[in-house]
């Protein structure tokens, strides 16, 4: 009768394979724990790996979207502040025009009001040429240099572009990044288009003596200044609603980012509790295999037969 059993070398080979397989499993689990990533290479789960790549890409692009949104909101906030200054200047100009409309004022008093209006005009022009966070003309659309050019006589002409261009906020959303000078400085009085800078300049010049009826000119100017203030407030409202839109987009992006992180964690992250439990199990099996191997390997007939 032959002893049924595998050959000695097969026993050692197989034990070797089993033990090294268990050891590889334990090492894999340990690696998952220490790196925090479930996948060390794509082939372990091609679908999950592809999803993780897509998520990391969205994450990277969303980060840029957030920076862009920050930039847009900074520029819009700058526009908002500048528009407030515009409104203040126009209100001051209205006060001055109201004073100048008074018939009892002397020429000198009107002339000094005219000088102050001239200062206000200069301030308005410099405000219209304000710079954004990147140093470009805030109200010049996409122009390379200033938004307004001043000729020798002090007249301001818009030299910027018609539109401001959009800033992408991600997921197909975008925001118009600012307002151009003509958006809020140009308006029409009694059906004829005009602009604030020209009006203030004309009023200042009229009060300084260029007009035959300065107080009449001041009265006329009050209408135009009122319309100009309206245009500025309208633009400020638009800027405010764009800022609110950016806030919404940022909030949405943040929420999406959280969802992404969640999914990333779920797909690619190591579940510590489960992994530790699995590791414990593999280690237990490995230890049992090692000790049973040691006992079996010792079990040789040569030891007992003397």
């Amino acid at each position, binding site marked *: 009768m*032959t*002893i049924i*059993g*595998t*050959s*000695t*070398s*097969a026993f050692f*080979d*197989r034990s070797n*394979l089993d033990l090294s397989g268990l050891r590889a499993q334990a090492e894999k689990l340990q690696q998952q724990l220490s790196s925090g990533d479930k996948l060390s*290479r*794509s*082939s*372990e*789960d*091609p*679908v999950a*790996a*592809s999803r993780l*790549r*897509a998520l*990391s*890409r969205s994450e*990277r*692009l969303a*980060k*840029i*979207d957030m*920076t*862009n949104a920050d*930039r*847009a909101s900074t520029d819009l906030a700058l526009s908002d502040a500048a528009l407030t200054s515009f409104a203040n200047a126009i209100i001051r100009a209205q006060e001055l025009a109201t004073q100048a409309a008074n018939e009892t004022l002397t020429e000198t008093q009107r002339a000094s009001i005219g000088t102050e209006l001239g200062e206000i005009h200069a301030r308005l022009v410099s405000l219209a040429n304000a710079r954004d966070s*990147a140093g*470009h003309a805030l109200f010049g659309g*996409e*122009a*390379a*240099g200033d938004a307004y050019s001043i000729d020798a006589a002090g007249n301001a002409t818009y030299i910027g*572009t018609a539109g401001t*261009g959009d*800033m*992408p906020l991600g997921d197909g959303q975008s925001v118009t990044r600012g307002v151009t000078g003509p958006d809020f400085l140009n308006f029409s009085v009694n059906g004829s288009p005009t602009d604030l800078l020209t009006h203030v300049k004309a009023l200042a010049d009229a009060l300084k003596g260029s007009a035959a009826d300065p107080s009449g000119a001041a009265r006329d100017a009050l209408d135009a200044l009122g319309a100009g203030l309206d245009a500025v407030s309208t633009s400020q409202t638009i800027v405010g609603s764009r800022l609110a839109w950016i806030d919404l987009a940022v909030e949405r992006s943040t929420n999406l980012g959280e969802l992404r992180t969640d999914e990333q964690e779920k797909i690619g992250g190591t579940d510590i509790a489960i992994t530790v439990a699995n590791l414990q199990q593999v280690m237990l099996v490995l230890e049992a295999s090692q000790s049973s191997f040691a006992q079996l390997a010792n079990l*040789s*007939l*040569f030891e007992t*037969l003397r």
Partner: protein
Amino acid sequence: MSSDLITIARSGTKAARIALDVTAQNIANAGTAGYVRRSVQMEELSSTSALNRDVSFSGVRLDRIVRNADAFRQAEVRRTGADASRANAEVAGLENIESAVEQAQLYPAIVQFEASLQQLAADPVDPSLRAALVEDARTMTRAFNIASSALQAVGEGLRFEAADGVTQVNKLTSELAQLNLRLARSADASSDQTALLDRRDLLLEQLSGYVEIGAIIAPNQTVEVRLGGTSGLPLVSGGTTGTLAMSAAADGTISFTLDGTATTPAAGSLAGKAQALSKLANISAGLDGLATSLAATVNAAQAAGVALDGSAGQPMFSATGAGDITLTFNDGSMIATAPAGAGAGSRDQSNLAALRSALGTTNPAGAMDGLIFGISSAVQSASTTRDTLETIAGTARIALQAQSGVDLDQEAVNLLRYQQAFQASGRAIQVAADIFDTLLGIR
């Protein structure tokens, strides 16, 4: 009566000695690769005499040394082993390809390039954003170069191994042919022949690791080896051998010929390497296509716009493939963000938007993801197949080992048994001597 107790006992001790020798040989070769357990087969020696009532015993003699090899199980080991080594070679090759593509970090580099373009949209005239875009584009081209050269290195490695495999096959076949000549001359069941048979089977098993073979064993124990199965092209026939040769095509794939006849091995590591190389050619072509289409998209958009100084946009990349894609300028101001006709320093970014939407259509990141997904799912499915084939091959090997391997416990028992047989025969001689003495002592 013609029996002779001493002669019988002497033949018994001799047979026991031989059996002990065989046992010792088994023990000594317990760990030798290809060694097949021997056992002794004894035969009773007796003669029938013309006289009916005559008792005529002559003891025992060694009939033959049995080599416990089962041709079927050996053929199974060769067949399943060839499958397993094909799958192993394929998985190893595919894994290298996967590492080459993944570790070049090309996907993150492409995403970074896209992100840079998006960031430039915030302020298209900002020199630092332009410089960042140029650097990210450079990183991307380098990642393409790295991936390409890594793939090339994988291909060279695979071809080198395949060429070495072909050399090994030719060496093994010529050794088998020589063995055939010696086997034809060796005496039946002699220890010389069993050693040669061990060698023959070991060589066949090694050969089947490289290519799928069919072995036809002749009655005189010589073997005829055919490529791919018992009806394939002859590889070894008697003392003559066929010459396996390998040639590489321009795209890096390999093909084999046996004595000038084209042949495609279906199993064995050579087949696995050929499969991995054809996947490699596939991936390389995909990567080259991605690099050229990306370069073409960006260059077309560049041509439609003007640089920061108002001059016509120049191509940004030059590429005929992933290996040679390079950046053609280092100056960020040459990125054409403004449309044709825009002046110097224009902040009009409609050309940049056009480039971004064209890239959205070409979708290089998606294509790259597709490439990585293709190779990684190929690795995954090949690994699954490999694991199955390994299990099958392992089972076949264990089945063969159980029959032909040396079990030390069994040998320990045999050692004891034959030792006792030897001692018993010795005692028989003692008895014969005593009887003789008894007869001599009669007075």
